[in-house]
């Protein structure tokens, strides 16, 4: 399995800066997800005003930050229930495929991951890019300059690439099937998304001489 750091996924959810147009003054606290969390001292929070909880936040064991994000990227025209159905179908296909694989092979059964959430996380972590190419104009010529990515943006790109790969399909193939295959491929460190990421890294490497063009 590839490089899975399990970095601070919470950065996807919480904003670092106070938003300028936020309806809440800066002294409002973020809502707390886990009821029995040991981190919070309840006396500290008791008299602090707290922001209203987002309606997609949940204490359920089926809740996952990455899953929730992916759900929002799947959504088209605000049809969240359809997106949810699609993701559920995807995860079901992954589960069925993995169980089939488990029953087919005889040895090394513990190497087959059946936990779909873990497969999803692995797939996204494997397809996260490290760098990005940005166009900078110098002397009338546009150069592709490699620049570092923030964590949030890299997660976004990984999920976008997975979805783009899944949406590029025949009309007769359903999105959940294609998405499941892409996710399984990416989780095993192969497939189109991983290739795309590697291509980007190669391109960044060949353009590394331009890296100092970011002075400006």
């Amino acid at each position, binding site marked *: 399995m*590839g*490089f899975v*750091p399990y970095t601070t996924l919470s950065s996807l959810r919480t904003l*670092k*800066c106070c938003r300028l147009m936020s309806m809440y003054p800066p002294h409002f606290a973020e809502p707390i997800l886990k009821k029995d969390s040991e981190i919070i001292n309840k006396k500290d929070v008791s008299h602090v005003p707290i922001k209203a909880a987002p309606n997609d936040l949940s204490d359920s064991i089926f809740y996952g930050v990455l899953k929730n994000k992916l759900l929002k990227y799947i959504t088209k025209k605000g049809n969240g229930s359809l997106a949810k159905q699609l993701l559920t179908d995807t995860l079901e296909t992954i589960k069925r495929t993995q169980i089939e694989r488990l029953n087919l092979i005889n040895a090394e059964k513990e190497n087959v991951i059946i936990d779909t959430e873990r497969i999803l996380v692995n797939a996204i972590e494997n397809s996260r890019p*490290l*760098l990005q190419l940005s166009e900078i104009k110098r002397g009338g010529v546009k150069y592709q300059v*490699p620049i*570092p990515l*923030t*964590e949030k943006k890299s997660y976004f790109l990984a999920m976008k690439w997975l979805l783009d790969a899944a949406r590029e399909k025949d009309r007769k193939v359903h999105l959940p099937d294609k998405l499941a295959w892409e996710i399984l491929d990416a989780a095993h460190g192969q497939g189109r998304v991983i290739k795309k990421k*590697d291509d980007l*890294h*190669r391109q*960044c*490497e060949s353009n*590394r001489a331009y*890296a*100092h063009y*970011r*002075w*400006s």
Partner: protein
Amino acid sequence: MRIPGALYAARGRAPQNEKEVPFQEILPLRLKNTVSGKADSGSDVACLQEMGVLFACLKDNEFVEKYCNKEINQFQKCYKFYMDRKFEAKKTVNQGIVQPGNNLNYKQLNKYMRRFPNPQ
């Protein structure tokens, strides 16, 4: 008889009458009471060395990331550190607390100069 123009030229051109051509102040001839914040924004370049190390490692290992965990972590840590510092710096600038000293940012300078403006 025509007089050749060269004869006039030998005496040179007469100076213009100052009253006919009054001095125009195109831009005001005094300094502004503000400075722009451009210089304080700094350059956006960071972690070039880490990026070079990462590229070298990736090239050696044919772009397989799991052999370059150390370099990747270093690179990401560096960028995160840089962004955090930038964020903190921006926050202190926006607070705009004026303290004595010569190392002032543009907002503090502007506050000072608003108190002691140029005479009109």
